């Protein structure tokens, strides 16, 4: 019995590895700059926002020390979340040809899509680190918490991707709906503005969403202790458990939903 399970995971692992490699090779195939694009894209967005906020709206940017690094970190985190979820939505349907002809663990497809985004995130974080060095950020020892927050981000993004990919098989509007949600969420999440410029009630609601909480925590421990976190907004570090608990429950639900419906994928894609 154990042997059977080992075989099963061994197979998933082989498959995962090969799908990640394929994804990687195909993504920037034929483009002259290739992989550099995954760094250039967030940097380009950063450059635009930087010009807008530092040059034209200095009121916003002056309120935060090391605003450029603060902004870049926000963009990088958001970029990861949107890459995983946007790739995730269509991932199962996009592999319909495979699913109809072979029985294999379907979660590997979604997982593979999130891995290439994870590699991008790692590279982008290096860029953030370089920027932090240049602008003279005085990183505190609390930065060691960063991996925990990245894990939270990974789990949350992946869970959203699992749920969306399974929903998309049944309902082909999901990708459009998600696109709209993400457009709104870009502004609803304190990526470009400091969270404390909005009303306190709104702050309290916004900070409960995992992307906002993770982003603010990362900024707090890496860039500047002035960045508001869920702890400072609610005045209690215990509030931290709310988004973490939510992510855990949501992850279990998303995986349960995906597992339940993955058996029927072959008939529906």
């Amino acid at each position, binding site marked *: 019995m154990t042997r059977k399970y080992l075989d099963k995971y061994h*197979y998933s692992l*082989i*498959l995962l*590895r*090969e*799908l990640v*490699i*394929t994804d990687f*090779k*195909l993504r920037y*195939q034929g483009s002259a700059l290739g992989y550099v694009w995954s760094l250039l894209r967030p940097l380009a967005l950063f450059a635009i926002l930087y010009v807008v906020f530092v040059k034209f709206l200095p009121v916003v940017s002056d309120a935060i020390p090391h605003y450029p690094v603060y902004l870049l970190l926000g963009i990088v985190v958001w970029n990861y979340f949107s890459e995983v979820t946007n790739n995730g939505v269509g991932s199962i349907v996009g592999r319909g*040809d*495979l*699913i*109809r*002809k*072979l*029985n*294999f663990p379907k979660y590997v497809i979604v997982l593979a899509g999130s891995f290439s985004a994870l590699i991008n995130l790692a590279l982008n974080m290096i860029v953030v680190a370089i920027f932090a060095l240049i602008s003279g950020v005085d990183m505190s020892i609390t930065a060691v918490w960063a991996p925990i927050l990245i894990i939270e981000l990974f789990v949350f993004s992946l869970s959203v991707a699992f749920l969306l990919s399974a929903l998309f098989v*049944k*309902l*082909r*509007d999901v990708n459009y*709906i998600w696109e709209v949600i993400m457009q709104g969420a870009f502004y609803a999440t304190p990526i470009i503005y400091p969270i404390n410029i909005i009303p306190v009630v709104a702050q309290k609601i916004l900070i409960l969403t995992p992307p906002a909480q993770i982003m603010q925590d990362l900024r707090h421990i890496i860039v500047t202790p002035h960045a508001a976190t869920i702890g400072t907004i609610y005045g209690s570090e215990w509030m931290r458990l709310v988004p973490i608990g939510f992510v855990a429950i949501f992850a279990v639900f998303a995986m349960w939903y995906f597992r339940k419906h993955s*058996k*029927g994928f*072959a*008939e529906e894609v």
Partner: protein
Amino acid sequence: MTDDQREVAISVNNVSKFFKLPHEKNSSIKSWVTGSLKRRNKGYEVQHALQNVSFDIKKGEFFGIVGRNGSGKSTLLKILAGIYQPTSGNIKTHGRLVPFIELGVGFNPELSGRENVYLNGALLGFTRKEIDTMYDEIVEFAELEKFMDQKLKNYSSGMQVRLAFSVATHAEADILLVDEVLAVGDADFQRKCFNYFKLLKNQGKTVVFVSHDMNAVREYCDRAVLIEKSKIIVEGNVGKVASSYTRMFMEDDSIDKNDAQTKIKKNRWGTKQVQYNSLSVEPKRITQQAKMIEIHVDYEVKSDVKGPVFGFSIKNTAGTIMFGTNTRLQHKDMAAMKEGDKGTITWRIPNILNDGDYVVDVAVANSDETVQYDWWENAKYISVFREQHTSFAVEPAIDVEVSNG
């Protein structure tokens, strides 16, 4: 009892599969919302793809699944492969199972041949290391040494099939599911496939084989089942299954279309000075009872010609011409024809065709056959049904007399 169970490779117990077919697929929000308000009763119809199917496949057996299009055999194969879940009943497999519903699953045209080997191999459960060790063998068998670093999209379809097949033959499985893979590829490739099957048989592998081709089923399978209208109607002896399958076509007049018919493209050219308007073959169902086959063609003359030659030929689905003739060879010289003339030509041929599918070509040309007026290739598809299939090209009525000393 335990010994008996060990012998079973796949056991299918009371498997049923229903598909819910919505009249309109509710795959957008609007139809989903409006649909859920008024649906429930008439939203979909239930299609019974399989009903209470049970059988066992023993280890080392070559097992055939036979049936017409839409009978449920592909659904059964997909359930065996674990791609579909049965609505009720269950399936137990003992040993590593590899399905070949299609060759080259996961092949990506944007990747090189080499990369595709690794990807396809991973889907079959091979690690990179394992593929490394058999890579040269795979390439050599596919005869693609020079092309491995080229993108797959630059391969001909034959090259792709060769590569896919080469990877597939290296799959280490106890049980193989094969779905008419043999229908693709040229004669040379098909021979390779059959050789591979023979090898599998000698190695004692269990093979489940879904096919329309009764010759292949007869030659390779130890046992078979015939599925019709989602149920098993004959099980066991291959000869019995194959002849029941053939008889099914003889009895059922509504079926005169088959797979092969849709695969054959009609092709027609010529100056159209004389043109065929219609073609029919009698009898409608050609069985061994039919002594003669008649081909009727109606022609019309579009501009004045002198002494046209009319001809026909019958070939099998592999393209080999079985026989044919024309009015010149038959010394039936035609008079000059005027525009607007119409007529009918009838060919009467003794029914010597073996069990199988054939195509009729007809043509009309000028008197020395240098100008084609109307060459109508694959004009008509015909099936000949005989209860016994032999390996001979034709089955003329042969008398045999044995006299002893």
